[in-house]
């Protein structure tokens, strides 16, 4: 296993240095950087798999000369799972990048881009296998920093700079909270090693544990993008080059999920009051719903996807939160189920979100715009991208029999099991969460009906879309790879569940593989078949068979009639793209129904003809939705600190006598104290 790790490490380091060292053509640098990244992530996949099924966690460590700092790594199933995920997406991204970064030839330094890319992947991998708090903090910040530099690749644009800065500061604020939490652990254990976090010499007091819970939730929540700490996400993720967005949205924010599970179930030993789980659950529900709602209003494809990350993090937290609640009441099986569901969705989201971002990247590559209203009819021009994007869309909308559906179904089940809980409040809240989840998923479905329908179907809406062409083979391979993974993750739970079970078992204290899988793996049946069961494979076969039946019936009744092609009826005039339903129009009813949340502001200017006031020469319509959190949460905080600083200016008034007086007074006061 050490060899695998070294291979991975060497690969990334090579990818980090080689491009910088060889001042050659961008092409060479591109191949060097992303080639070695690909190799390294390949090694990562193997490492993840072996680590997942290793009987014992694999550890290794190098002592630094600095006090407290030990480069210790530990590969237990949880870490291995995330290594696997990161490496899978990393591999796809590397392959994709080979084609995609040709965009940036001449516009940005490929060497820097490539080596940052490698560094980013490496830091993420190290984050999930770090076994020392100090080391963890270093790689964690490194991860944020490198991703920041990747975000500002196109720093020529003001909005990119803004996005980068916003991201950098937010994530640093989060880190401050994490540091505080780790320091509390340190107080107990007197060491930064995770082992000491697990079993401190003097156990943390209840108050301290609660503090840790909150600090960690805020700290890692900022990275995960939970509401209301999500605001940076829709800025930063779209700003980055698409393969980076895929990594950030697909796996980077998952490292926060990893850390949450690590702290709550590992360090804090899964012992917590019920309200912890409840808080997580509520945050999850709110994030899920608000995430998808804001996504609906986005017409920048990448921002839309970014908001969906918020949504899916919410869904993941629903699972984990439910798990925590069950854990509190000793319903270990269900706790394990909830956690398993959450982790399952984590992997799935990593895959289809990465796929979708790569798809969005391909559209950007082909059309040079991110605005959905300028796409249209692309399925005909970019058939492969279209299909892959569709698979991603179906998965993220949790439609059977895809992976998204399976994990969401498991979350539903764990929420439904709430009737075993003792308190009526929870008995009611979990089903309500389930209802919100239902609303979320159907809104997501709407959102992707919009995203796919507006972008890929009907007539091209702009010259960009009209001239679009299918993307290079490398990019298609990458997307195809992820698409296949998505499908497999959905159809083969009998493979995925045992893996997840190995991760969950140590925390829950028992293995629920046997309980979740029924009919020797062909069906999922949490707790028992009588309660609920699902067989994605069967559903898939059924769907295929029945569509075949449909075809059969059609032929049987109608024979082989050939169909006639004719242009769509445009109310008597030729149909043009301007008659099509726009993305904005598509979500208009939703905007209206949920107006309370959006608080939309609409502006309509009409310029009438002089001749008659019944005919408008031009109309200008714009609508904005209130950025509630920025307006009511962030701006005030910033204003507060800036204001304080402004008030402090007087200290530095410029008068020499004033300055002398400072020293004088200080002296006098100290003298008075001392005697």
């Amino acid at each position, binding site marked *: 296993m050490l060899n695998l790790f070294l291979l991975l490490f060497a690969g990334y380091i090579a990818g980090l240095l080689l491009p910088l060292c060889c001042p050659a053509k961008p092409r060479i640098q591109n191949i060097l950087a992303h080639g070695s990244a690909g190799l390294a992530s390949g090694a990562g996949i193997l490492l993840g798999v072996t680590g997942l099924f290793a009987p014992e966690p694999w550890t290794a460590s190098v002592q630094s000369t600095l006090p407290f700092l030990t480069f210790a790594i530990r590969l237990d199933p949880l870490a291995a799972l995330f290594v696997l995920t990161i490496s899978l997406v990393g591999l796809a991204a590397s392959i994709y990048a080979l084609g995609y970064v040709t965009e940036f030839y001449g516009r940005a330094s490929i060497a820097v881009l490539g080596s940052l890319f490698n560094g980013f992947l490496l830091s993420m991998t190290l984050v999930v296998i770090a076994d020392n708090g100090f080391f963890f903090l270093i790689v964690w910040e490194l991860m944020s920093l490198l991703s920041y530099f990747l975000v500002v690749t196109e720093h020529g644009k003001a909005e990119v700079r803004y996005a980068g800065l916003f991201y950098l500061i937010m994530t640093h604020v989060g880190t401050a909270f994490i540091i505080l939490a780790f320091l509390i652990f340190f107080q107990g254990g007197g060491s930064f090693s995770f082992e000491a976090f697990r079993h401190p010499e003097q156990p943390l007091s209840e108050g301290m544990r609660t503090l840790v819970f909150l600090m960690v939730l805020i700290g890692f929540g900022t990275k995960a993008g939970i509401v209301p700490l999500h605001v940076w996400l829709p800025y930063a993720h779209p700003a980055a080059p698409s393969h980076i967005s895929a990594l950030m949205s697909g796996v980077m924010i998952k490292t926060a999920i990893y850390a949450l599970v690590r702290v709550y179930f590992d360090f804090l030993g899964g012992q917590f009051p019920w309200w912890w789980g409840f808080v997580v659950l509520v945050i999850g529900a709110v994030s899920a719903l608000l995430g998808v709602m804001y996504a609906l209003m986005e017409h920048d494809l990448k921002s839309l996807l970014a908001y969906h990350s918020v949504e899916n993090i919410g869904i993941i937290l629903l699972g984990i939160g439910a798990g925590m609640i069950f854990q509190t009441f000793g319903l270990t099986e269900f706790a394990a189920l909830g956690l398993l569901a959450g982790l399952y969705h984590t992997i799935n989201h990593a895959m289809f979100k990465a796929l979708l971002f790569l798809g969005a990247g391909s559209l950007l590559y082909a059309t040079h715009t991110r605005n959905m209203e300028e796409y249209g*009819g692309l*399925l*005909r021009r970019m058939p492969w991208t279209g299909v892959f994007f569709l698979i991603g869309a*179906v998965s993220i909308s949790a*439609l*059977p029999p895809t992976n998204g*559906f399976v994990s969401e*179904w498991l979350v539903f089940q764990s929420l*439904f099991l709430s*009737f075993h809980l003792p308190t*009526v409040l929870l*008995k*009611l809240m979990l*089903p*309500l969460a*389930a*209802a919100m*989840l*239902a*609303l979320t998923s*159907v*809104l997501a479905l*709407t959102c992707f*009906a919009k995203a796919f*329908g*507006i972008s890929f*179907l*009907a*007539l091209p809406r702009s010259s960009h879309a009209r001239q679009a062409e299918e993307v290079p083979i490398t990019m298609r391979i990458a997307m195809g790879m992820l698409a296949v993974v998505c499908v497999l993750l959905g159809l083969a739970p009998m493979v995925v569940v045992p893996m997840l079970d190995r991760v969950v078992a140590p925390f829950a204290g028992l293995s629920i593989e046997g309980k979740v899988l029924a*009919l020797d793996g*062909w*069906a999922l049946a949490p707790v028992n078949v009588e*309660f*609920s*069961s*699902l067989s994605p494979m*069967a*559903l898939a076969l*059924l769907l*295929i068979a*029945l569509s075949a*039946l*449909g*075809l059969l019936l*059609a032929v049987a009744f109608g024979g082989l*009639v050939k*169909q*006639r*092609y*004719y242009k*769509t009826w445009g109310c008597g005039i030729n*149909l043009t793209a301007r*008659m*099509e*339903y726009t993305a904005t*129009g*598509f979500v*208009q*009813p*939703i905007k209206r129904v949920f107006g309370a949340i959006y608080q939309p502001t609409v502006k309509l200017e009409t310029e009438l003809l002089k001749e008659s006031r019944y005919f408008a020469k031009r109309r200008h319509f714009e609508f904005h939705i209130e950025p509630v959190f920025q307006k009511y949460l962030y701006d005030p905080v910033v204003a507060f600190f800036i204001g304080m600083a402004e008030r402090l200016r007087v200290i530095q008034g410029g008068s020499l006598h004033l300055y002398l007086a400072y020293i004088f007074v200080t002296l006098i006061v100290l003298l008075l104290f001392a005697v």
Partner: protein
Amino acid sequence: MLQAIFLVVAQTIVLLAVSPFIVGLIKKVKARLQLRRGASVFQPYADLAKLFRKEPVVSTTTSWIFTATPYIVFASTLAAGLLVPIFVSRTPLNFAGNIIAVVYLLALGTFFLMLAGLDAGSAFGGMGSSREAIVASLTEPAMILSIFAIALTKGSTNLSTIVHKTALLEGIVTDPSPYLMALAALFIVAIAETGRVPVDNPATHLELTMIHEAMVLEYSGRYLALIEWAAGLKLAVFLSLIANIFAPWGIATTLAPAAMGIGLVAYLLKIAGLAMLIGVIECMFAKLRLFRVTDLLGVAFILALLGLLFFYILRS
């Protein structure tokens, strides 16, 4: 194994056969109540046959999505139907998915219909899709909650289990109030999902009001036939759901031929009854404005929630 296959095939046939009949029956009832003679109950069969034989016209702007959708919709709706007990309480496909799977299978159909609506590029399709979206998104939570209320009373989310237990009079709560509320909620949901008055009017082609019809406006020939049939199936699925969950009387709890016979007859009667009920409702109410639909579905949601509440309060 053979038995299972037989049952599945039988259920498929029954569903396919019965769904046009339901549509026809509703039309007939409405006609009668409007003092018209109305077309024969079996008219829909003839329509389908005709549509299948007609040459389909496909818009040049469309992609393969447009032609694939009818099959997907048809398949997903029928698949959903196969997960619901029809005349035998223990469906062989029970393991394949529980009631949530049913909901999401139907959602799959809806998704592709929306895409198809957008694909043709005409404003009507888009309008239909966007309206369908809002209706769907409002029905879903109510549906899940009511399902959960029911699942609670039976301690299962598997339809077969629920129906089977109810049929054997197991675990019926002493007080039926949560039950009834869930029923009411689910009924409203059914009406909304299947696009009947007062939420949508399948008979209209007035762009101001139509939802489902607008989505499928561009379809013709065999594609239209499949979609119409799927619509009927959807209706059948919901009606069977309601019928068998709340009144599984006579449903075959064993696989004895006699029992199955009885079950079939009972099923047809129940469905017919519900269809007539819908017909009556469609005559009594006018279609709601789109943005008033929210109120109706809000009511459904609250009903389901109350059902849940009652259940717990009565238990504790």
